[in-house]
C-alpha cells in the first residue's frame, strides 16, 4: 500500500503538469441570445471594454458579454475554443496565418456585406490585412502599430551626425558613432522578435513586398530569395561590425532595456514598435521631455526594389465573426461592427491614451492631442504606405513561427549562415 501511494504521488506530480496544460478555455455560449467577445487585458484594451459598456447600455436587446484574457494565454485559448466550436461570437486575431486558417476551416463568416462605412474610413494598408480572396473576413478594432526608428538627438549632436535618410547615411553614421564609442543601434536580440523587424524592413526595402508574399502563399523555395539573403547578411554584418550594440544578444525587450539604452545615450537609434513611444514617456520621462527624443521612418535603400513608403508592424487587432454563433448572435456582431466600431467617443479615448486609430478622417482630432507630433507622424506613415507588412511571425502559419524565431536567433548569434537559414526555412 505504501509503495503504491508513493508511486501514485510521483505520478501525480508528473501528470498534474499535463493536466494543467490540457486546460482550455470554454466559451460561454449558454442558451441566451447574448453575443460575446473576448478582449485582452492591459495596453489600450480598457478603452475597448468601455466601448462595449456604452454599447450594452444603449442596446438593451443586443447585449455583448465581454471577457478579458491575458495576452499570452489568449492565443492558445481562442484556438481551442474556435477548434471545438465554442468560440465567442466576435473572434479577435492579429490576422495573418491564424486568420487564414480560420477562414479555410470555415470557422468565420464573410463580413463583406456587413462593414457599413468602415472600409472608406480605414487606411487601405491596414484594411488589406483582413481581406482573403477579395472578401473581408476581419475588420480592425483598435490602434495601428507601425515599427519606426527612434533616435537620441543628443547622441547625434555630440558625434556631429545627421539623422540618416538612406542606407548609405546609415553606414557612414555607424563609422562615426564607432569612432565616438557610442553604439549606433540598440537591439533587444535576446528577445529575437525585435530583430525580426530588421529582417522585415531590410527584405522589403531590397526586394519589395512580393518577396514575403511568396512565402505566405507557400511558393516552393520562396525563402531562398536574394532579398532575404541580403537582409540576413546585412544583419550579421551589423552584429559583427559594430552596427548593433555589442551586448545585443543579451539585451531583452521584456523590461524595455532596449529603450533604456537609447534613453541614457548608450545607443543612438532604436528600431521598435510605435508602443515604445508611450513606454519611453512612462519609464524615461526625463529623456522624453528633454527634446532629444526623436522618431523617423526606416531609411531608404538606394538601389532597392521596394517602395520606400512600405512599413512593417502590427496593423491592428481585428474582429471576425464566428460561423458557429447563432444567427441572432451574428446579427448583433454585424451591427456592432457596422454601426459602432471607431465611433467618436472611442476614437477620442484612444487618441487621449496616445494610441492611433487607423482612420483617414480624424486629422483634426489628432492635431488637438497632447502627442500630436508623434500621432501625425505615424498617421502619415500608415496613410501613405503602399503596403503594411504584418509581422512575419504572425503572418506565417503557427507551426512556422517557432522555427523562424529559432533560426533567426541563430543568425544573430552567428551560429548559422544566411544560406543555412533559407535552407532550413524552405524545408519546413
Amino acid at each position, binding site marked *: 500500500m*505504501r*509503495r503504491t501511494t*508513493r*508511486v*501514485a504521488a*510521483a*505520478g*501525480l*506530480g*508528473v*501528470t*498534474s*503538469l*499535463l*493536466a494543467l*496544460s*490540457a486546460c482550455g478555455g470554454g466559451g460561454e455560449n449558454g442558451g441566451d441570445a447574448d453575443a460575446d467577445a473576448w478582449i485582452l487585458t492591459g495596453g489600450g484594451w480598457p478603452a475597448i471594454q468601455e466601448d462595449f459598456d456604452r454599447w450594452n447600455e444603449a442596446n438593451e436587446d443586443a447585449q455583448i458579454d465581454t471577457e478579458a484574457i491575458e495576452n499570452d494565454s489568449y492565443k*492558445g485559448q481562442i*484556438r*481551442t475554443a*474556435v*477548434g471545438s466550436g465554442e468560440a465567442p461570437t466576435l473572434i479577435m486575431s492579429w490576422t495573418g496565418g491564424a486568420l487564414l*486558417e*480560420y477562414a479555410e*476551416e470555415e*470557422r468565420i463568416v464573410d463580413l463583406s456585406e456587413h462593414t457599413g462605412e468602415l472600409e472608406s474610413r480605414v487606411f487601405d494598408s491596414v484594411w488589406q490585412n483582413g481581406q482573403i480572396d477579395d472578401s473581408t473576413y476581419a475588420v480592425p478594432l483598435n490602434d495601428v502599430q507601425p515599427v519606426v526608428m527612434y533616435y537620441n538627438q543628443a547622441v547625434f549632436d555630440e558625434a556631429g551626425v545627421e539623422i540618416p535618410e538612406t542606407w548609405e547615411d546609415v553606414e557612414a553614421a555607424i563609422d562615426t558613432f564607432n569612432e565616438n564609442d557610442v553604439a549606433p543601434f540598440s537591439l533587444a*536580440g*535576446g528577445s*529575437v522578435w525585435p530583430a525580426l523587424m530588421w529582417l522585415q524592413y531590410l527584405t522589403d526595402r531590397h526586394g519589395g513586398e512580393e518577396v514575403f508574399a511568396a512565402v505566405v502563399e507557400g511558393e516552393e523555395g520562396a525563402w531562398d530569395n536574394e532579398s532575404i539573403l541580403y537582409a540576413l547578411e546585412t544583419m550579421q554584418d551589423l552584429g559583427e561590425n559594430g552596427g548593433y*550594440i555589442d*551586448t545585443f*544578444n*543579451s*539585451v*531583452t525587450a*521584456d*523590461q524595455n*532595456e532596449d529603450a*533604456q*539604452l537609447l534613453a541614457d545615450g*548608450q545607443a543612438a537609434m532604436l528600431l521598435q514598435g510605435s508602443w515604445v513611444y508611450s513606454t519611453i514617456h512612462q519609464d524615461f520621462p526625463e529623456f522624453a521631455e528633454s527634446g532629444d527624443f526623436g522618431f523617423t521612418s526606416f531609411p531608404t535603400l538606394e538601389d532597392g526594389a521596394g517602395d520606400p513608403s512600405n512599413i512593417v508592424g502590427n496593423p491592428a487587432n481585428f474582429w471576425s465573426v464566428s460561423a458557429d454563433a447563432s444567427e441572432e448572435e451574428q446579427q448583433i456582431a454585424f451591427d456592432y461592427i457596422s454601426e459602432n466600431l471607431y465611433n467618436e467617443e472611442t476614437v477620442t479615448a484612444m487618441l487621449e491614451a496616445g494610441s492611433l486609430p487607423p482612420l483617414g478622417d480624424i486629422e483634426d482630432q489628432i492635431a488637438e492631442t497632447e502627442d500630436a507630433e508623434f500621432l501625425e507622424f505615424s498617421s502619415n506613415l500608415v496613410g501613405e504606405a503602399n503596403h503594411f507588412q504584418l509581422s512575419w511571425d504572425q503572418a506565417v502559419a*503557427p*507551426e512556422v*513561427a*517557432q522555427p523562424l524565431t*529559432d533560426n533567426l*536567433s*541563430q543568425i544573430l*548569434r552567428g*551560429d548559422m549562415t544566411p544560406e543555412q537559414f533559407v535552407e532550413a526555412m524552405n524545408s519546413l
Partner: protein
Amino acid sequence: MALPAVLFFGIFALIPLFGVVVISFMEWNVLGSPSWVGLSNWQAVLFDRPFTWTALGLTITFVIGSYLFQAPVALLLGVFMAGQQRYRALLAVLYFLPLLFSSVAVGLTFQSLFSPNYGLSAALPFDWLPNDWLSNSDLVMWVMIFVVGWCFVPFHGLLYQAGVRQIPQSMYEAATIDGAGRVRQFFSITIPQLRYTIITSSTLMLVGSLTYFDLIFVLTGGQPANAVRILPLDMYVTGFSSYNLGYASVIAVILVAIGLTLSLLLNIISGSSKMESDKAGA
C-alpha cells in the same frame, strides 16, 4: 476514506494522462478535428526528430545538475536551521523567502540582475565576470540550475530541518560521551537518521526538475540556441506555439514514463519496502 483521494487522482491525473496517450496517436492542430495516424507521431518524434534526443540530454543535465546543487545545500541548511545558534530564527526566515515569491517575479528579477548593461556585471568592478549569462549557450544551463536551485533549496531545507529535529537528542549525547566529533556525528547519526527525508526530498527534486518549466520559460524561453529547451519546455513549445498536439503528447508520455521509472527506482534502491528500524533501542 480513500474515495476523495482516488477521485481527485482519477480526475486530475489518470483521465488527462489517458487523453494524452490517445492524442499521441493522433494528428491534431487544435483547430481542425483530430485524426488517427497510428504510430507515425512516435516514429517521427523518436527517430526523425534529432532534437528529441538533444532535449532529453539537456533534461538529464538539468536534473542531475539541479540535484547535485540542491541536495547538499538543502541538507546543510536544514541541519543549520534545526540548531540553536544565535540569530538562527532570523536567518531561517531569510532563507525561506525565495519560496514565497512567484516564479514570474523571480524570473524578471534575475533577468534584470543578469542584464549586461544594467545588471550585476555592469555594477561590479570585476572584468572577469561574464556579461552574457543568459545569452551564452554554454553558460545558460548552469545559470538556470542555479536560479531554479535558489528557488527550491529553502523548501528542501525545511524538510531537512523537520527531519533533524526528530532525531533524539540522546543519540548525540551518547556519541559525545563516546568521543565522536561534530563531523563524525553528522555522518554517523544525522545522515542515517535522515534517510527517509533524503529519499522524499530526492524524489521531489529529481521528478520536480524533470518536469520543471516556469522559470526557464520566463527567463529564456529555451533560447539561446535552444540550449535550455528541456523536455517540458519542448512539450509546451511543440504543443502550444506550433500547435502540434500529437508530437507534444508523445513528449508528454515520454516524460511520464521517465518520471514514473525514476520514482520507482528510487523506491527500490532505498529499500523502503523492508521493515526496519534504526531508532536507538527500538
